[in-house]
């Protein structure tokens, strides 16, 4: 059982080596002639004003929280989906309604956020 995951580990190791090698190569191959003008951040040819530690719109945090709530539900759907055909032949239509109720509750939460204006961008 664990044996089938060996290729995955090899792939991950190869991908890490490839990724690190690419980034290291950019340091080794190119010339290194830094100066302060070059190393300042780009701001359309002007001197950079202020820092980037400014406040970010609350909307982005809201999206992040909604993502956690709704993305977690995906993982409840998969086990049900894998077992659906088998369970449907065994216990019939109640397996469908159990998920339907779950999705309806999820949709009610979605409608609540919608009505509260959680998805409004202006």
């Amino acid at each position: 059982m664990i044996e089938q995951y060996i290729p995955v580990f090899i792939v991950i190791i190869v991908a890490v080596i490839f990724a690190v090698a690419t980034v290291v190569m950019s340091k080794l191959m190119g010339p290194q002639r830094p100066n302060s003008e070059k190393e300042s951040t780009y701001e359309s040819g002007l001197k950079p004003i202020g820092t980037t530690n400014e406040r970010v719109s609350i909307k982005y945090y809201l999206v992040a929280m909604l993502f956690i709530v709704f993305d977690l539900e995906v993982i409840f759907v998969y086990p049900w989906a894998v077992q659906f055909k088998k369970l449907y032949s065994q216990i019939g239509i109640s397996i469908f309604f159990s998920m339907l109720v779950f999705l309806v509750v999820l949709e009610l939460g979605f409608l609540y956020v919608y009505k509260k204006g959680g998805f409004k961008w202006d």
Partner: protein
Amino acid sequence: MGILELAIITIVKILIVLTLVLLTVAYLVYFERKISAWIQNRIGPNRVGYLGLLQPFADVLKLLLKEDIVPTVSNHPLHALAPMIALFVAFSTYAVIPMGPTITLFGWQIPLAVADINMGILYVLAITSLGVYAITFAGWSSGSKYSLLGGIRSSAQMISYEISMGFSVGGVVLLASSLRPIAIVEAQSGLMWNAFIQPIGFITFLVAAFAETNRLPFDLPEAEPELVGGYHTEYSSMKFAAFFLAEYANMIISSALIVTLYLGGWQIPFIERLNLPVGLTVALQVGAFCFKLAVLLFFFIWVRWSIPRFRYDQLMSLGWKVMFPLSLLNIIWVAILIMVFKI
């Protein structure tokens, strides 16, 4: 087979697939430029080599020999980590995608996927989710306002579309009763392609794939007119190339995923009725996979040069108010289909 044999076969497969992916990325960039030129009635690259075919190698070489500039105000470790994550994600996802049926070679049963695991779909979703970190880190650590705005926009966009992507895959899993990509392909024999059975899920997944790869019409993170280069404004040399490589590799992986999940994978409908020799059948099936992949990649490029960019509020309301309910509807639709038609 023993563990050592398994490891050797895997390494051979990885080397073949990695070479293929890198070559495809190189020529995808070339074809992107050529096709955009055709669409805009230009000639496109035609100087380096015959028909400009050596252009991608010239580009890579040029980027390699450029100076790697890191801004002084940036967060250096994260600034270097971000392109690594992007590349890691792009080059580890292909592991579970089946490119052909299981073949028998020298007495070994070799599936034509690098890894044949029964959690394949979960693996893909888990690894691709990490891609958000690359863009967020790149944007945040650069210390540039354009990068920060691009990174934050992008992370919000990617997590929004990930939800509808996850729910769309639910419909596919329902039909195949498995999370194993090879089983999903085998469940689509004949013309039982998921694209025909669940068109809503196919469309939501396709749109989500565009959004996840940050391609037009969803390329808000690097919207050139307003954000310069977006999250990779402050990257140069191979680090910039890493994001570029990752974007195109992600395009290939999304296309391969769409082929696997919705377009029957490597299957050619009713090929078994022709009674062809086994070797030819396998070759044709691998060819069919490559053909479907090429059509989808062309579609990606075609859309990019045909459709204007969304506004950010339109993008978010499409993701949450349209795609999310539709992908939920798709699951119910597929479940009803299974109950009514017993498929």
